[in-house]
C-alpha cells in the first residue's frame, strides 16, 4: 500500500489520475474504520489534509457559497450555521464532537451512503457538487444526480470532489433524524426540508430510506401549491399530513438492522409533516432564515 501526500490540488488530481484505485482520505472517519477492520485494503491512500484550499470556503459571484470538500462539520456549524441552517442541523447530529472535528461533507459525498447526514440538506437546498479530474477538468453535478446507488456516486475513478456550491438559505430550513440516541447514531431515516419563498418552492431530501438519498418531488409540488406564500396564512393540518404521506411515498426503504421498511415509512411521514410545520411557523414569524 502507498501513502500519497499531495500538497496542492493539482498534485492531488495528478496522483488520482496515476492511481485511480487510491482512496482519498480527509477526516478519516469512514475510511479508517474500513482499514481498521480490514474490510478494504486499497492500493493507496490519498491524504487530502495537506491540500489547504479544501478546508476553506468562499462567497462566489453568483451569490452561492463554495465550501471546500474538507471543511469539517464543526466548522460548518460554527462558521456557516447561520447561512446553511439545514446543513448545520444535520452536521450537529453527526457522530460526536471528536467526529465532527474531523469528518467532512466531502467524505460523506465520497462514501455516498444512503444514510449520510449531509445528503438530505444538500438535496433540499439544490446544492451542486464540484468534481474535477486532471484529464477532463471540472464538472458540476447537481446533488440530485450525484447519488447513483447504495454507496455509489457519479464520481469517476480519476475524479476528486473539490467543493459543494449552495445558495445561502433564503427561507427557513429544517432537518430531522431518527436514531436510538442523540450521539453516535447512523440515521434510521432522516428528512431535510428547505423553503424557497422567492420562487414559492419547497426542497426536500430523504435519507436512509431508499438505495440513494433522494428528493420527494410529488410532496414538494403538492405543498408548494397549497401553501399561502403571499398571504402567510397558517398551515392547514390536512396539508401537512398529506405532505407527509407524499414524502413517504417517494421512499423505497428496506428492512435492516436499524429498522423495518414499515417503520421508516411511518417515521418519514411524521418527520416530513413536522419539519414542514416548523419551517412554515418560522416563515410566518418572518424568519428569512431559521436561527442557527
Amino acid at each position, binding site marked *: 500500500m502507498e501513502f500519497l501526500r499531495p500538497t496542492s490540488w493539482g498534485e492531488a488530481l495528478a496522483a488520482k489520475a496515476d492511481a485511480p484505485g487510491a482512496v482519498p482520505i480527509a477526516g478519516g472517519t469512514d475510511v479508517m*474504520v474500513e482499514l481498521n477492520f480490514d474490510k478494504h485494503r486499497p492500493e493507496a491512500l490519498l491524504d487530502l489534509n495537506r491540500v489547504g484550499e479544501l478546508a476553506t470556503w468562499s462567497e462566489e459571484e453568483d451569490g452561492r457559497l463554495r465550501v471546500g470538500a474538507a471543511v469539517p462539520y464543526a466548522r460548518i456549524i460554527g462558521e456557516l450555521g447561520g447561512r446553511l441552517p439545514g446543513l448545520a442541523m444535520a452536521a450537529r447530529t453527526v457522530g*460526536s464532537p*471528536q*467526529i465532527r472535528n*474531523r469528518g467532512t461533507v466531502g467524505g460523506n459525498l465520497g462514501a455516498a451512503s444512503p444514510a449520510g447526514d449531509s445528503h438530505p440538506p444538500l438535496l433540499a437546498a439544490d446544492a451542486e457538487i464540484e468534481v474535477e479530474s486532471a484529464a477532463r477538468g471540472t464538472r458540476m453535478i447537481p446533488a440530485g444526480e450525484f447519488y447513483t446507488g447504495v454507496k455509489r456516486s457519479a464520481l469517476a475513478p480519476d475524479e476528486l470532489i473539490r467543493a459543494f456550491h449552495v445558495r445561502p438559505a433564503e427561507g427557513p430550513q429544517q432537518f430531522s433524524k431518527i436514531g436510538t440516541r442523540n450521539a453516535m447514531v447512523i440515521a434510521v431515516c432522516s428528512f431535510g426540508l428547505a423553503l424557497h419563498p422567492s420562487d414559492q418552492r419547497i426542497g426536500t431530501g430523504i435519507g436512509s430510506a431508499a438505495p440513494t438519498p433522494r428528493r420527494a418531488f410529488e410532496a414538494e409540488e403538492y405543498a408548494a401549491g397549497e401553501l399561502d406564500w403571499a398571504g402567510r396564512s397558517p398551515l392547514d393540518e390536512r396539508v401537512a399530513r398529506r405532505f407527509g404521506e407524499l414524502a413517504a411515498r417517494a421512499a423505497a426503504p428496506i428492512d435492516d438492522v436499524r429498522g423495518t421498511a414499515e417503520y421508516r415509512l411511518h417515521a418519514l411521514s411524521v418527520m416530513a409533516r413536522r419539519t414542514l410545520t416548523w419551517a412554515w411557523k418560522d416563515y410566518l414569524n418572518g424568519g428569512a432564515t431559521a436561527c442557527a
Partner: protein
Amino acid sequence: MRVNFTVNGVEQTADDVWEGESLLYVLRERVGLPGSKNACEQGECGSCTVYLDGTPVCACLVAAGQAEGREVRTVEGLADGERLDPIQEAFVECGAVQCGFCTPGLLVQAHDLIERVPEPSDPEIREALAGNLCRCTGYEKILDAVRLAAARKAEAGR
C-alpha cells in the same frame, strides 16, 4: 514508511509504519505511549481521544501518515511532571474512575471543554462527552468531576 511528529512536546520518529496504520497504533505500539486506549477502532467510544494540532480527535481514525509534522498531545501530556492537571485531580477526587479504560479519552475531551468553555452548563458537558463511552456507567461521577474542575478553573481565573 517513516512518520515524524511531535508528541507531548517531544519530537518523535516512528519507523516501519504500515501505510494503513492509525495514529493510535503508532502512539501505543511504536512510541510507547499506551495511555490512549484501543477499544472500538471505529470512533464510537472516544477512548483514544487525543489532541491533534490542538483539536480533540479519535486517534484510531487518523491515518498515521496524516500526523506527519503535526503536534499530538495525549493523556500522558496533560500532567505537568508529577503534578496532575486539575481535570485529573477532579476525576480522582470525585471517584470518576472505575475500571479506568475510558478515563484517558474522557480526560482529554473534558480538558478541551474546560479550555474552551470556562463555565460549561450540564447540557454542554453532556454534549461534549457524548462521544465517550463508560461501560462501568459511572457517568454521574464523571459529570461531577468535570463540574468541579470547571468551577476550580473559573475560581482561579477570578
